[in-house]
């Protein structure tokens, strides 16, 4: 891609990632949540990959990283659920306190689950698109 596209995407991608983290963290207060935040983060990753490209080895390394992130996201979700089972005897029990309403650190396990889902969805969608890009690069 040309120099203009590279510069613009280099400036904008961190802002998009910060917006995705904001949407994820405020998911229990405002519209949005883990699914939307993860998709926004995956969009930033894809913008960078499409603008910069890169060799097969680098892209393969990145794909390994994103699929590891995806697996750790789903493990974190299971971990929270099983923690409720161990402590309180009920799967998905809300073990943490509810806190003050309308604050960021409130609503028990919901923000933690939102973060887990954001990691999972972001990793999944990035893995899908990186696999497609790698396949194209491989065939050439």
């Amino acid at each position, binding site marked *: 891609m040309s120099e203009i596209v590279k510069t613009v995407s280099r400036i904008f991608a961190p802002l998009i990632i910060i917006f995705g983290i904001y949407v994820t963290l405020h998911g229990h207060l405002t519209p949005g949540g883990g699914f939307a935040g993860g998709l926004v983060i995956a969009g930033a990753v894809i913008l960078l990959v499409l603008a910069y490209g890169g060799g097969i080895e680098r892209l393969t390394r990145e794909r390994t990283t994103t699929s590891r992130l995806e697996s750790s996201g789903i493990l974190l979700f299971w971990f929270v*659920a099983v923690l409720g089972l161990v402590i309180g005897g009920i799967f998905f029990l809300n073990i943490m306190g509810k806190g003050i309403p309308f604050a960021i650190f409130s609503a028990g396990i919901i923000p933690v689950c939102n973060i887990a889902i954001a990691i999972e*969805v972001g990793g999944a969608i990035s893995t899908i698109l990186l696999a497609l890009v790698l*396949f194209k690069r491989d065939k050439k």
Partner: protein
Amino acid sequence: MILGAILAIWLPNLMAAIISMGIVGYSLALSFMFLGAPDLAIVQIIVETMSLIILIAAIIKTTEKDTPDEKKLSRAVLYIGSTAFFVVFLLMSIKVFYQLPPFGNPALRMASDYIASGFEKTGAPNLVAAVILNLRGYDTLGEVTVLFAAVVGLVVVLRKTGRKR
């Protein structure tokens, strides 16, 4: 929206058909805004953009031509048969609509409980997040597992060293 769908099926150029599918998806996001679901609208816009990228990446290295229909008797029978099936389906579904609650006034058997006591039970002001992650966590767990399975399947299908022919 229906016009966009018909265009997406009918257009002979695959790129134009994919863009017409974009019309359907974005107007779906707009309808979600009117139906009082901002969460869904946000997710739908991003998902539509992603799926357009995926489909265009699929056709950009292969081909853009649609396969033309042959003028044969079996095709005509297929068209007529599916049209007749659709008319029957439409009539049956109109009968079903009388069983559904009227538009704008649903029967809130389970959801009235969620609306009334969801905020006190979970402490989250966004009731969609409360339902998704706390009151109905099993559903979300299952969906996340399906997503993981789909991604693993895609990576297996598209891996570099293909299977032995």
